[in-house]
């Protein structure tokens, strides 16, 4: 019988035979595995389990201008191969984040993709202004798609013009060298239309997908499980939706870098998103069940790419769109 303590001296990912560099709209990350917004706080907690600098980047929980208490509990319901959450963007606000969290990520060698969320175009613009010039900022992710709002009209990502307004404002107030990523909702009729609007407004890349709006009832109380009534569905259950969204957007906009997320808990899941068109992959809900998941997924993805004969990650991005092409031909 033998037991291993995984967190101690976990093997570093060194696979020189596969170039893992990932393009993120002007930024190049050393590898394509990221955390997902809302699933890694601001990195500190996960750093107890692995070195956050090993990841391509840490994507922070969405930051707002002011402190936010979030929604009442219960905030979580486990569902088949997934979960619903209705956290409601609880967080300390941008001031605290700039003073404590971003410097910590920078000091620990992590590349930070800072997710921002606001209730108006002006709030998003102000957040972008506050972030400008902050050390350690690798990219800004614009969360225009959080489903936990009382009024669906407030989900910017449901409207091409609202998405465009927010993304345009953030792009204008962000340093030109820092990519702006728009995070999109799958809960729309035509995700390509929204994607196009964001890119036309200046988005350097897109993050696909945010959670799907869902709901569960407690069959003992016969009432909604969640304090917020509805919540965002995530986990392996949504992976096919992510693959579909990434596929559609990559087919329409093949030159736009995509960060794929939705149900990734293994390297093969990550590979599926890459083959569909993602240049990088976020590990989100899987972290709740396995805090070491991001570095494990990176190891497994590296092996999966090597096993299939890919010399680089770039070769694999969107590979599934190139029918008939065998590896080694080009």
């Amino acid at each position, binding site marked *: 019988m033998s037991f291993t303590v995984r967190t101690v001296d976990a093997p570093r990912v060194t696979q020189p035979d596969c170039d893992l560099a990932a393009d993120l709209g002007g930024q190049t990350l050393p590898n394509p595995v990221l955390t997902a917004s809302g699933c890694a706080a601001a990195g500190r907690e996960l750093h107890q389990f692995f070195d956050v600098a090993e990841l391509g980047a840490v994507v922070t929980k969405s930051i707002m201008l002011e402190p936010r208490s979030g929604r009442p509990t219960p905030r979580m319901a486990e569902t088949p191969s997934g979960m619903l959450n209705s956290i409601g963007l*609880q967080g300390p606000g941008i001031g605290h984040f700039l003073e404590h969290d971003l410097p910590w990520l920078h000091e620990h060698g992590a590349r930070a993709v800072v997710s921002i969320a606001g209730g108006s175009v002006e709030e998003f613009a102000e957040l972008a202004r506050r972030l400008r010039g902050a050390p350690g900022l690798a990219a800004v992710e614009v*969360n225009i798609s959080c489903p936990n709002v009382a009024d669906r009209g407030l989900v910017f990502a449901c409207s091409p013009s609202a998405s465009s307004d927010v993304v345009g404002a953030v792009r204008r107030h962000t340093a030109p060298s820092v990519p702006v990523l728009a995070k999109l909702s799958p809960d729309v009729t035509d995700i390509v239309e929204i994607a196009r609007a964001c890119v036309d407004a200046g988005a350097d890349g897109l993050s696909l997908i945010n959670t799907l709006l869902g709901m569960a009832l407690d069959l003992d109380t016969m009432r909604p499980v969640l304090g917020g009534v509805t919540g965002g569905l995530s986990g392996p259950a949504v992976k096919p939706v992510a693959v579909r969204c990434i596929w559609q957007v990559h087919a329409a906009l093949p030159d736009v870098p995509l960060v794929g997320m939705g149900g990734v808990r293994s390297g093969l899941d990550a590979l599926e998103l890459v083959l569909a068109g993602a240049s990088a992959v976020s590990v989100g809900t899987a972290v709740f069940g396995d805090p070491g998941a991001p570095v494990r997924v990176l190891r497994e993805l590296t092996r999966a790419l090597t096993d299939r004969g890919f010399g680089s990650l770039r070769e694999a991005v969107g590979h599934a769109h190139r029918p008939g092409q065998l590896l080694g031909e080009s």
Partner: protein
Amino acid sequence: MSDSATQTRPLQVSGEILASRRVGAYHHLTLVAPGIAERARPGHFVALAVGGERSGMILRRAFSIYQSRATGVYGGTVEIVVGVHGAGTRWLAEQHPHTPVDVVGPLGKPFSLPRDGGASATLVGGGYGSAPLFGLAEALHKRGCRVDFVLGAASADRLFGALDAKRMAATVAVTTVDGSTGTRGVVTDVLPELMARAGTDVVYACGPMGMLRAVSRLAAAQGIPSQCAVEESMACGIGVCMTCVLPVVGDDGRTRMVRSCVEGPVFPGDRVRWDDVGTVPPETVGAPAAAATGGH
């Protein structure tokens, strides 16, 4: 602070079930979890993956540590008490020895021990919520504290650890709602008399939220500090998911929605806004000014 933080840095360990035993309505599991037992202190908890590697149950289940032994034939072990509430706990209860289980721990802030070695501590457990109190009782004994127990449950089969308590405590009071053993009623029916007899200096409690509210209020009314370990539902147990929050008053007198996994599970009883658990009180830091708020 930094020393203790280093000591209790949680580990993720590939462990396995060493033994599983039915105790009344519960299951007492012994887990081989090297590294975790050595770091565990009374009040810490562990978070277990359930259902096997390809399980559709993707979230961890959190359990207070009942006992931990740093050394053993198979390495360090931690023991937990499982009450079957759903598919995940049912899976755990049904597993035989040698089933691999991924364990994360030790997690959370443990109980604080009284500075005064001769203090009289009263330990109150509801159902299998009593589990972390026996390790605590041992630690209190080592400090020369007097320990008294109050254990309550709905029925006799839902009491946990009455024999342990009798072995360790100066006195033990038992209550059951149905009267199947001990005094018919709830823990707070017998607590005032026991506290008077024991000359209680501090109350420690673990159990359902309603019991903690009542115990904390009773202690506060007598000017006696209480430490309550809460049982909030959690998705991760490590502080990233923000689901296990409850309203707690800070040193500055302001209410915040606080994570019970990292800032708890043990809280001073007089800091938790028990009546407001499940809500966001309007004066909470960052509480919504208007009804429409959103985001995850």
